């Protein structure tokens, strides 16, 4: 790949944005450049990244899923409720995680039925299911705030891989999640680039009819996609509960925007067929950077959403301008497309 192409790629623009932003923040508040802050940014990105990976897969396939926070909190909250109700071993960390993943996958299957079996447009389908999930959860499973979550989950919140105490300043704590999340990220990347399933996801984004004619089962691929996203969202949900050290069923509302923004800024096209894990990671980092460190710029936290919105707006405007330029060039080389 030649230099020019490399420079024009979306990821490069993101990296530049991240570096610039970091510099601006750091100049205003040198405490930005501490290890503690860096590790903190990581910590606040884990859950987001897991959600974002799921959303990325859906967006590449040409759809959109806005039910993932509802799935996440449903799975996380229900897992905790089940642990307490049936008095399962509170010291078992893997059990609630497994429960949440399973619940998430089941909820994802419901999305699959709506989308793959019945062909309901993805935005409307997932908007509907998010209402159903949240509604059912709050009506039948519980609407109360649980602060005494199982001890293993609670302890996990402080499971740090590294603890570095600088001479002055706060303790820098790198949470152990960095390892599994990094592995998960790599796995998803491999899934998307090296497996038939992953390429089918891209194929779907490239053209549903063409994919069908290749002999790929569109319905089955879609079903797998939404179940996978469900499972990932469930995982993210239970980790969220753990890191927050509480299970609040009203949480995670509104977080769709930040995560979709991260994925879109990361280069995924909402029309489908394009997007990379690397771009999504950068997108999540950028959003975390903004949300967490606006304060260091002297801007009150209540401007976080506006900042994300502004960034997203800039991002889509740039993408739109690029698209029209590309379209013009493309017409010149493949002209006379009779009726395409």
């Amino acid at each position: 790949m030649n230099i020019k192409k490399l420079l024009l790629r979306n990821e490069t623009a993101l990296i530049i944005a991240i570096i610039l932003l970091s510099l601006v923040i750091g100049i205003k508040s040198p405490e930005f450049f501490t290890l503690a802050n860096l590790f903190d940014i990581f910590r606040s990105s884990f859950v987001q990244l897991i959600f974002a990976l799921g959303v990325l897969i859906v967006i590449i396939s040409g759809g959109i899923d806005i039910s993932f926070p509802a799935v996440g909190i449903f799975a996380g909250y229900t897992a905790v409720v089940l642990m307490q109700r049936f008095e399962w071993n509170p010291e078992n960390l893997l059990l609630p995680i497994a429960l949440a993943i399973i619940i998430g996958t089941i909820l994802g299957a419901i999305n699959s039925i709506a989308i793959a079996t019945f062909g309901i447009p993805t935005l409307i389908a997932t908007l509907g299911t998010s209402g159903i999930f949240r509604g059912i959860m709050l009506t039948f499973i519980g609407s109360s705030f649980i602060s005494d979550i199982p001890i293993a989950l609670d302890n996990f919140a402080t499971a740090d891989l590294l603890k570095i105490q600088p001479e002055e300043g706060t303790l820098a704590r790198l949470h152990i999640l960095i390892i599994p999340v990094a592995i998960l990220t790599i796995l998803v990347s491999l899934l998307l680039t090296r497996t038939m399933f992953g390429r089918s996801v891209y194929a779907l984004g490239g053209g549903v009819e063409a994919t069908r004619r290749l002999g790929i089962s569109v319905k089955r691929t879609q079903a797998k996609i939404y179940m996978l996203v469900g499972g990932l969202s469930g995982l993210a949900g239970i980790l969220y509960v753990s890191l927050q050290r509480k299970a609040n069923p009203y949480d995670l509302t509104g977080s769709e925007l930040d995560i979709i923004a991260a994925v879109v800024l990361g280069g995924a096209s909402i029309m489908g067929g394009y997007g990379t894990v690397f771009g999504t990671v950068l997108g999540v980092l950028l959003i975390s950077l903004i949300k967490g460190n606006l304060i260091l710029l002297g801007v009150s936290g209540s401007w976080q959403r506006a900042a994300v919105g502004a960034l997203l707006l800039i991002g889509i405007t740039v993408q739109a301008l690029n698209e029209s330029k590309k379209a013009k060039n493309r017409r010149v080389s493949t002209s006379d497309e009779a009726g395409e």
Partner: protein
Amino acid sequence: MNERFSKFNTGLLADRKITQLMIFTALTFIFFSYVSKDIFFTSSNFVSMAYQIPEIAILSIALMLSMLTGGIDLSIVSISNAAALVASWVMTTKMGESENLSNKWIIIACVLGTIVGLLAGAVNSILVARLNVTPILATLATMTLFNGIAIGMTNGESVSGLPEQFMRVGNGTFFGIPTPFVLMILIAIAVGFLVNRTTLGLKVFLVGTNRKAAQYSVMGDRKVIAWVYLISGLLSSLAGLIIASRTSAASPDFGSSYILLAIVIVVLGGVNPNGGFGTVTGVILATAVLQMVSSGFNALRFSQFFYLAAQGGVLIFVMILNVVLENRRTNKSIAKSLRS
């Protein structure tokens, strides 16, 4: 000469759908009246519903407009809140200055609110009509931005204590009918006229039916789309003012679940999410149905969360119904075209 010429938009189909909806509305009414004689079937309940329906009906009409063109305006609620906030801020500030707030300032406040709606709508127009950004993405971004700005400027707090004269609009009557209801009818008639009896309206249907063909054949197709998002913004601001007037408060996060409700209403009301078909009457009827469900659930002591789940359920159900019916219609027309 056939009088059917007087209705376009495949008038026959519209007639059929509205009749079905009227029957459905009547059935819902009978059901809840029967099941909850004391609470639902009372004049105080009907009056209360008459006060609550208008704001969501107006928002749904706004949504219908953007959907008719094959797009969607997800930012309607955030625009409504923004308009309400601006108007409320002006009113409370002026109230603080003098004891009696003249009507002049209330009117100015409302005008400013609608200007906010127009400006916000203009942003959407530029993104969708000029820059060709996909409506889902564009309005997702503006929704985030507008909501973010509102939160930032108010610090997440609501503005309350609005002047009494203003509240009289949202809570008073006009010749015995609740004022907001009258306003809703006026707006419905106006939009209905726009959509069914003006050149702009016909163009809206054509653009929604086939955007590509519209680019070639419909004069000013981009202007049509621009107007639609502008009007959507305007209507949203009117809804916001009515909300503020009724509740005597404005907050940045009010009605966060209204977007789901609006989509449910619009889909139930017979609007085709892909564009090209929809009626104002259908939307009003659907609003009535959903309001009756909400009120009925309330009377039956169901939690509001169950209502949330019900909304999602209705949405999914109606979409599945649409898909099933559409498949049957397509099969019939394949057979027909083979014959011709």
